[in-house]
């Protein structure tokens, strides 16, 4: 088919991607947006198969079949709690594919005089570096999220020097590659160095920082595709890749802001230092009130407005269904119920919303930080399940705290606070939470699901 027609078709594909992503911005249009995006991808594949440069279809059909079966199985079998792992793997595979395609592109250009055109080689280097970092970084993120390796930050002496050395080596090899007449072998050297860099970059990132890293890897997988577009001189790759790159970058920014940290701090595995002088015992001693499920049920009976604040502890104990039942029961009794969701609750952006949606909580009840904060003063009971730093009032009141300035949910402004938590152990920031010792707070120590179920039981019997 005429190359101009194929390119026109690709233009249509790009438009479908833009419209599709735009649709994903609103709950009402999101499903249609996703369908438009996948339609665009289907069209892109069909158009590409019409390209006269494609001679053999056997390998293509086999590879498409294998990929489709694996992809569909993963997508249909995955637990919603495991969504961060899934997205990490998919990001990584996208990056990996870009590395391979750029490598193949260099092979193709090798014979043609085009190899002397340095911008092709430069694009291939970019694709190789970004793609390899994405691939191996995603695998480490997956292994951490799946608890195959330790979730905490791994640090070793000379780490930054080694990473800097690897980055410089990748850059230097890339330059050398630009100057060599036969760049193909050198390309794989760049990929090897970048692979090691990808491993070492994500290793020092702790579990609580995962939302940032997943968003960043998402951005990288897009940029790798865009770089591959420069290698192949293909606009649809450039457009689609940069759209994804931009989207991932925005989410990275949102996550960093929500955690009060810079991207650099996250990348080097820097954790805020624990404040000296104040010990947990001083803050908590004799002031923490432990309640029973009965007392909490009684509080709910008397409440007119309840706000539920889910944290990672809810996801870990798979309490989302019990929490949804609780919300439904309270609403059935005419109590106003809302969910206040902090941007970094969970292990990836918006993860908590997905878990609650899975448990059939209507999305109108899911409120973000800005929406819910003004409402806490009119709230009778705030129920915190397994959240810690994101409800710590020190972020507002103590300018010397590592949390100072971090946007938090103003749970402490509610009339009563119930906190379900396994223990008084501090959160990621490593500092105690005065909310737990406040006069209006009742602690329910135990597993999130077990405690919510116990409260439910009392409510149903009463």
């Amino acid at each position: 088919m005429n190359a101009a027609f194929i390119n026109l078709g690709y233009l249509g594909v790009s438009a479908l991607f833009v419209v599709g992503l735009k649709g994903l911005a609103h709950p009402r249009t999101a499903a249609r947006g996703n369908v438009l995006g996948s339609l665009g991808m289907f069209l892109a594949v069909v158009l590409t198969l019409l390209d006269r440069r494609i001679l053999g279809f056997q390998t293509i059909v086999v590879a498409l079949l294998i990929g489709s079966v694996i992809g569909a199985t993963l997508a249909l079998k995955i637990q919603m709690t495991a969504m961060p792992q899934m997205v990490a793997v998919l990001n990584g595979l996208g990056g990996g594919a870009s590395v391979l395609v750029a490598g193949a592109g260099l092979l193709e250009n090798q014979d043609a005089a085009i190899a002397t055109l340095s911008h092709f080689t430069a694009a291939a280097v970019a694709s190789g570096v970004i793609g390899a970092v994405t691939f191996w970084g995603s695998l480490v993120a997956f292994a951490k999220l799946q608890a195959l390796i330790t979730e905490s930050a791994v640090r070793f002496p000379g780490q930054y020097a080694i990473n800097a050395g690897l980055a410089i080596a990748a850059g230097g090899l890339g330059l050398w590659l630009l100057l060599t007449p036969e760049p193909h072998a050198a390309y794989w050297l760049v990929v090897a160095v970048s692979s090691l860099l990808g491993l070492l970059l994500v290793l020092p990132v702790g579990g609580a920082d995962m939302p940032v890293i997943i968003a960043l890897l998402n951005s990288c997988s897009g940029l790798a595709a865009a770089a591959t577009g420069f290698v192949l001189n293909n606009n649809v790759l450039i457009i689609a890749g940069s759209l994804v790159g931009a989207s991932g970058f925005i989410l990275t920014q949102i996550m960093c802001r929500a955690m009060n940290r810079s991207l650099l701090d996250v990348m080097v595995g820097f954790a805020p230092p624990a404040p000296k002088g104040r010990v947990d015992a001083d803050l908590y001693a004799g002031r923490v009130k432990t309640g029973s499920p009965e007392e909490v049920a009684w509080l709910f009976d008397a409440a007119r407005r309840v706000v539920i604040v889910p944290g990672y502890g809810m996801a870990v104990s798979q309490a989302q269904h019990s929490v949804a039942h609780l919300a439904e029961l309270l609403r059935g009794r005419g109590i106003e119920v809302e969910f206040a969701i902090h941007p970094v609750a969970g292990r990836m952006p918006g993860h908590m919303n997905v878990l609650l949606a899975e448990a059939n909580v209507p999305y109108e009840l899911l409120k973000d930080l800005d929406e819910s904060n003004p409402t806490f003063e009119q709230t009778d009971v705030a129920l915190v399940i397994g959240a810690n730093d994101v409800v710590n009032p020190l972020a507002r009141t103590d300018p010397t705290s590592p949390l100072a300035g971090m946007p938090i949910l103003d749970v402490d402004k509610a009339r009563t606070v119930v906190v379900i938590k396994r223990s008084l152990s501090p959160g990621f920031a490593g500092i105690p939470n005065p909310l737990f010792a406040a006069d209006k707070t009742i602690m329910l120590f135990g597993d999130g699901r077990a405690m919510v179920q116990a409260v439910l039981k009392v409510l149903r019997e009463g």
Partner: protein
Amino acid sequence: METAVIGLTIFVLALFAGFEIITKVPPTLHTPLMSGANAISGITLVGALLAAGSERDLLMSALGFVAVVFATINVVGGFLVTHRMLAMFRPRPKRVP
């Protein structure tokens, strides 16, 4: 060089378009947005198909083959799992009291 400049122009404009489109996405939809965008980044599949079907040399076909498998998992898995998530966000009919 000409083609590179055109490509760069498209790249920068698409970045701006991406920022404009995505800044207003509500936090509720961040996970589906991410997996949906991620599926779109599987557009590398186009390049992978060209490499796999070129029959120029064995190495290139092999690279293309693996790339097609990777990118297809990315695309199919990404769109399907996004669909699954979005189905849960759909407003349900009111419960009968």
